[in-house]
Structures are given as C-alpha cells and as structure tokens.
C-alpha cells in the first residue's frame, strides 16, 4: 500500500526528466544545424529541388484551403455581424483575419501535415537503410547535405506561400461576399484595401518564416534520430507532424502576444 504513494510523483518526475532530455537533444541538434548553416559548402542544387518540393508543390493545397477559409470566414462574420447590424465589417475582418492569423496558421498547419511528414519519413528511411552512414563514408556531412537545404527551403517558401494564401483567402471572402451575401464589388474591394496595413501583412510573413522553420526542423529532427526499422519510420513521422503542429500554434500565440499586439 505504502509504495503506491510514490507512483504519482514518480510518473511526473520521469516525464519532466524525459522532456528536459528531449529539449537538450533538440538544442544540440540545432547547434549542429546552425554551425553547418554558416559554414560552406551550401548545396545549391538540393536547395533548389527542395524549394520546388516544399514550396511549389504545396501551392494547390495551400490555395484551396485558403480559398475555403476566406469564404467561410465571410459567412460567419456576416451571420455574427448581422446580430448587431454590423454586416459591413465582413470585408475588413476577412482581410485582417486572413493576413494576420489564418493565412500563416493554416499554411503552417497544412505544411506540417504535408512537408514535416514527408521530410521525416524520407530522412528516417535514409537512416534505417544506412544511406546517412553512406553519406558520411563518401565525405559528405549529412547535416549539410540533407538538413540545411530542407530547412532553408521551408523558411524561404512559407512566406511566399502565405502571400499567395492571403490573396486567395481574401478572394474567397470576396467571392462569397459578393456572390452570395450581396455586397457590392467595388465597395468590398475598397473596404479591404482601406483596412490592411503594411505591418499586418509583414507580421503574418514573419510568423510564416518561423512556422516554416518549425515544420522543416521538426521533420528533420525526428527523421534523423529515427530508430527501430519500419515501425520507427512511422513513429518519427507521427512525432514530426504532432510536434510541428503544437509548436506552430504555441509559437503563434507567443509571437502575437509579445510582438504583434501593439
């Protein structure tokens, strides 16, 4: 009976220790990554192909989700706004909501699903099939050859994707607003342009760069440290998507509250 008293503190203690250990490992991985980032060579060819894979190939997914998000936002604001006769704020709220929050967050989360998963599965497979060891025996630093191009490509791609998502998202709101809610096209456009300020867009783009880093870095970290064969590949993929998504939402809150509220 007596020994059961210890179970709760023991469980808590163990998870805290495990969390500290993973934070430590991620920090070491980041240090290695950073040292590789600032020393030559940079593999330009890999960087370009990752830009295509992470950025260009994500366009359809990001475009579609942004369009529907903008559309549904317009509908909801209209319904909510009409309760206190404020239907006219639809254009403004769609514009601000998309550029400041939903554009970067939706694009980040879609990339966490699409890109974190595929990076992590790819690198984990390379780990279990000894391709990463083979890189080392061929005088190539795997951190430089695999990790740096992927992380750089995501940090560059996501802000560009978010600009496109902003435009398409606002367009989604515009289509719903003018075709189904009866707004006049010219005034909808004018309301949108009047409300958006440069810093709204910029804050969204800075968030996007941070989310891009999180997405690729988590995919690389979990893939690179994968163990345990095919099952391990699956496990690291899940971990990559889950940790990237949580970190995106958490860092979004932190960035918004610390930097972008005033």
């Amino acid at each position: 009976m007596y020994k059961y008293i210890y179970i709760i503190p023991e469980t808590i203690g163990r998870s805290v220790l495990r969390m500290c250990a993973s934070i430590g490992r991620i920090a070491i991985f980041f240090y290695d990554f950073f040292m590789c980032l600032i020393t030559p060579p940079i593999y330009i060819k890999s960087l370009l192909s990752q830009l295509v894979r992470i950025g260009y190939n994500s366009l359809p997914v990001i475009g579609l989700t942004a369009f529907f998000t903008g559309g549904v936002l317009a509908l909801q604001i209209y319904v909510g706004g009409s309760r206190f006769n404020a239907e006219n704020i639809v254009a403004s709220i769609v514009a601000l909501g998309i550029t400041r929050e939903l554009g970067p967050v939706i694009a980040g989360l879609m990339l966490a699903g699409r890109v974190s998963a595929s990076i992590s599965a790819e690198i984990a497979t390379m780990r279990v099939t000894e391709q990463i060891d083979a890189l080392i025996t061929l005088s190539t630093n795997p951190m430089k050859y695999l990790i740096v191009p992927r992380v750089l490509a995501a940090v560059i791609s996501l802000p560009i994707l978010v600009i496109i998502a902003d435009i398409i998202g606002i367009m989604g709101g515009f289509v719903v607003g003018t075709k189904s809610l009866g707004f006049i096209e010219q005034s909808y456009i004018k309301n949108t342009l009047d409300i958006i300020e440069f810093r709204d867009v910029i804050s969204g783009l800075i968030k996007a760069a941070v989310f891009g880093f999180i997405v690729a870095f988590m995919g690389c970290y979990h893939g690179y440290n994968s163990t345990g064969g095919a099952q391990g590949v699956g496990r690291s993929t899940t971990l990559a998507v889950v940790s990237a998504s949580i970190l995106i939402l958490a860092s979004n809150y932190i960035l918004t509250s610390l930097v972008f509220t005033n």
Partner: protein
Amino acid sequence: MDHVLKINELSKSFGDKSVLNGLSIDIERNTSQVIIGGSGTGKSVLLKCILGLIEADSGEIYFNQQILDKKNRAEIDFYSKIGMLFQGAALFDSLNVQENITFGIKKLESNLGNLSDIAVDKLKKVGLDSSVLHLYPSELSGGMQKRVALARAIARNPELLFFDEPTTGLDPIMADVINNLINEVIDEVGATAITITHDMDSAKKIADKISMLYKGAVIWSGDAKDIHSSNNPYVDQFIEGSSEGPIKINLND
C-alpha cells in the same frame, strides 16, 4: 610488418549491454581479412567504430600509424581513402546509378575525367554496362544494387575497402558472383579489404586471413587455409554450423 589498420583494446557498450570487449586486431596491407562470427556478436558495430559512425567507449584505432578519432578523420582525409559496401547496399534512392557511383568524386575535385566515363568504367569492373547508368536504385534487382554499391565503393580508388555481409540476402549464384567480383576488385585496385560475414563459403573464397569474433573479442586469428586445423572448438563449431559445442546461443539476445 606493415599494418594499414591497428585496433587496440576497443570496447563499446549500449546501455548495460557490452558489445565489444577489448577487441584487438591488426590488418596487414594488401591482404583480404575476413572477420567471421555469429549474428549479434558485434561485427557491424566494429566496422561502424572504425568508420566513425559510432564512437567507441575506449580503445584506439590507428590508420597508417595515425590515430583515428572524431577530429582526426577529417584532417587526414580518411574517408577519401576508404570505400564501404553496406549490407543493404545503401544506394541513394533519389539519385540515379551514375550519380550514386560518382557521388564521392565531385568532392575530390579530381581531374580523373568526365563523371559518366568514370561511372561506366566502374560499372564495367562490377560486370554491368552503361545501360543502367540512368536507372534509379528502385529499378534494380538486389544483386544489381549490390554491384552498383560495389562500384560506388571503389569509385575513388580507395586503399582500404570494407564489406559488411556482402553475400547476405543473395541467392547462392549471385553470392558467388559477388565473391568473385570482390576478389577481382581487390586485385585490381590493389586495396586492403576487411570483410565481415557469417557466410563461411564466402569467407573461404575471399579471405587471405580469417579472424573469429565471439562475445566482442577475437578468439582466433590465422591464415584462411588453416581454418580447418585451428584446433579451436569455437571455430570448429562455427564452420560446421552445429548447435552443439562451446558457443551457446542465447535466444533472448
């Protein structure tokens, strides 16, 4: 005696499981050294320690009389002097055969000639022709992948070659083809070869010298021709492939 590689009292544990226990072995230049031993006796771990893919807990490794450690491997350009054939070939799936074979060459900035000529030349050495140059690893059979991996291992004319279970997972005929290729390649490149295997037929075919590993240490070393007269009960049991003898299989291992 001229030793390419000297390994002195190497030990490595994973957690409380000790894999290498003060292993020592010297590898003579221009010989084909085979290291045999049962599964899980630490053969791959030994190779990975030499290659710097795993860090040993204690002990030293000397390559051409220079100590090999984390820092030093880059300084003496260790990796451009060796070639490694991995057990599962470990070809890069995103690159075609030519890019795989010449992967390490770009970094040498060598003027050995045009990359595709080098690739064709190395392919010829492993019995393949230029028709596979632009195929991807997933389009090749297991035996062909092994051959391409062998071509990649010899691409930089290394002085030291490592083979991890080169015949495992191949049918007996393809295994023999690979054994012959290894012999030809060793002769032609003039390299020292270290092969780890549990395939006795392969060992007899390619070895000048054989060492046997048991519980993380070398328990017998000698010329390949003496393997049948070793008078060592462990070696005898291993080459007979018998479950009766001093080697006890721990099924929980």
